[in-house]
């Protein structure tokens, strides 16, 4: 996601590791710089509310906060994000 530096994009995580200290170590080790909510485990409040039963799961939102894609990965994710960035960065037609 470094390619997207400088563009209006954000990757936000909801993490379900149960050990917070181990998680912090892993983040440093893996050089993960994007922010995550810590949900305290696989039955945490966010995970339960959003009915997450398998990992990973993702939602892609446009700049207005609308859900536009769900569970897209690799090339599909790249395409989805690029489509939404284009929508945002292209001048509006009258």
């Amino acid at each position: 996601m470094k390619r997207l530096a400088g563009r209006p994009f954000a990757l936000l995580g909801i993490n379900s590791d149960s050990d917070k200290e181990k998680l912090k170590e892993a983040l440093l080790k893996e050089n993960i710089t994007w922010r995550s909510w810590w949900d305290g485990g696989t039955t945490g409040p966010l995970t339960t509310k959003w009915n997450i039963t398998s990992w990973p799961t993702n939602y892609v939102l446009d700049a207005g906060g609308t859900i536009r894609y769900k569970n897209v990965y690799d090339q599909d994710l790249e395409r989805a994000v690029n489509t939404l960035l284009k929508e945002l960065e292209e001048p509006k037609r009258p």
Partner: protein
Amino acid sequence: MITYLVIFVFGLLSCFEQSPEEDGPLQRIRGDYEKINQKYNEALRASDNEKQREELLGVKRTHIQECVRSALRLAEIHGADSVAFDSLKWIITGGPGYYPETGQALDKIQEHHLTNKKLGLLCVHVKVFRNVYPKTAEFLRSAMQRNPDLEVQGLACLTLAQVLQAYAGLAKKLKDPTSAKTIEEDWPKEIVEKLKRTDPEKMIREAEQLFQQTIEKYQEVKSPDDGTSLKLKAEACLFEMQRLRVGMVAPEILGIDIDGNKLRLGDYRGKVVVLEFWGHW
């Protein structure tokens, strides 16, 4: 002594209730299955050759299928008694995976064991077998309607709602030519054909009604896998169906990040956001 150890370990691994009577033949089948798993998993771990791993997986599956066939034969011999039930239960919940015999096992359960009070866990596990659809839905419907136990009814009801929701999603994707292609490549032809003839909106409405029914009628029942009440699970499913669909504005998320700082989804309006649910394990 070893016998009890195998059962105990297997019970821990599979996380389901232990059968009070462990019959000789079924015990042997389960023991064989464990040995096959151990042997081939070790071999797979030791191999670094893709082709060799594929071959090993193929042989492993053939051997496991033999165990499943043996269990099915055992159930056939025993008819409607507890050995038959335990054998069929093992096929569905014991971990061997999907084989054509899985569908046959489900038929036998529906024929002889539909009113068994221990059917609950089976109902939950059955949704994993995607190739058995629509038999899974029919089985769950029958269990919900005919089993006298409240827990079994509740689990069948919730699982049926989840199955209908999942297949409605597939049916919807099949109506869109861009997403249809992947599904057609990935799923058995008979299932694709059936789903193409299905009305996804009708299935979704039925799923919603069943989630609602779970909340109202089965709120006391707890799920056997994590102890959460079926009411909470059904509410989460309904929330996802009604608030987290593509085209809807995502609900606000307000909380604390891993470093202890406030994190609010709403602060990221104006940016394209990927929300990733993740973990290490």
